[in-house]
């Protein structure tokens, strides 16, 4: 069982940061909704509030690390230009997708949208975390702030969901491959 360095980075970016962020997002939506729509938000203990603040800061870190690894580690491998005359495009995912009318849409729609829409997630969740950390329990006195926090958390979830979906599909049709091979285990012949 082995994996290439590029595949490992794609895995870390998608499963380690992206998918974990999406999972955390659904949890944050529920908690923020509970916190902001509860008839008595004061029932939240300082410990629960502290936990939610820590949770949101973790989400901010995950979101930024996800987009930065995507843009600066994996995207350059994705958009690498093959030398003239290259026939096997398997190491050049963008060109591989563009080489067939049945897959070009995954690049021209999927990647073209994913590369930008993903950035709305960290921007939105950074704002959400800032507002929650700054106001904490005082949010119960700011109905409109609570509404904005929920809307932006939802927007962050949608943006990350779109990016995650297209990332998954792109990697299915044109996986980022190459680099050193890491041997994870040696298989035994049956």
């Amino acid at each position: 069982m082995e994996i290439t360095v590029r595949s490992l980075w794609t895995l870390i970016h998608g499963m380690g940061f992206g998918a974990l962020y999406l999972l955390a997002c659904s949890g944050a939506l529920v908690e923020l909704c509970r916190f902001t729509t509860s008839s008595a938000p004061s029932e939240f203990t300082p410990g629960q509030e502290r936990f939610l603040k820590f949770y949101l800061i973790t989400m901010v870190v995950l979101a930024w690390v996800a987009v930065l690894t995507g843009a600066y580690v994996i995207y350059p491998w994705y958009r690498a230009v093959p030398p003239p005359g290259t026939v096997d495009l398997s190491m050049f995912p963008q060109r591989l997708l563009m080489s067939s009318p049945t897959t070009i849409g995954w690049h021209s729609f999927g990647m073209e949208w994913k590369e930008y829409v993903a950035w709305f997630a960290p921007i939105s969740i950074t704002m959400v975390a800032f507002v929650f950390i700054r106001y904490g329990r005082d949010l119960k006195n700011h109905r409109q702030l609570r509404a904005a926090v929920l809307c932006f958390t939802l927007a962050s979830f949608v943006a990350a969901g779109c990016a995650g979906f297209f990332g998954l599909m792109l990697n299915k049709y044109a996986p980022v491959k190459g680099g050193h091979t890491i041997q994870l285990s040696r298989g035994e012949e049956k």
Partner: protein
Amino acid sequence: MNTSNNVASPNSPALTNGSGAAAILSAGIGSFALAVLAFAGDKSAHIKSSLVFYKPTGPLSGVTTAAILVWLFTWGILEWRWRKRTVGLGRINAVALVLLGLSLLLTCPPVVDLF
């Protein structure tokens, strides 16, 4: 936007809403800046090439870096101006959400191709 200085009373919130409003509006502006830069780069080869800050990543590097700078700069200015104020948050929320919605649309390739 209507603003007023905070007047403390026993029933009023402990904090003014200005700081939150600054964060919300700047997030909308930052997102919209990203969408506008992406759109401009898609429509103009000159802008596209000027947005290449890091060659392996291409124009994406310039679009996102510039948008983040716009976002943080706007946030800093608004925070400085509104931190101790109570502002009309209804309108600010509406503007921020419209900007965010437009950003999602403006980055969507079929919408970009309409122009």
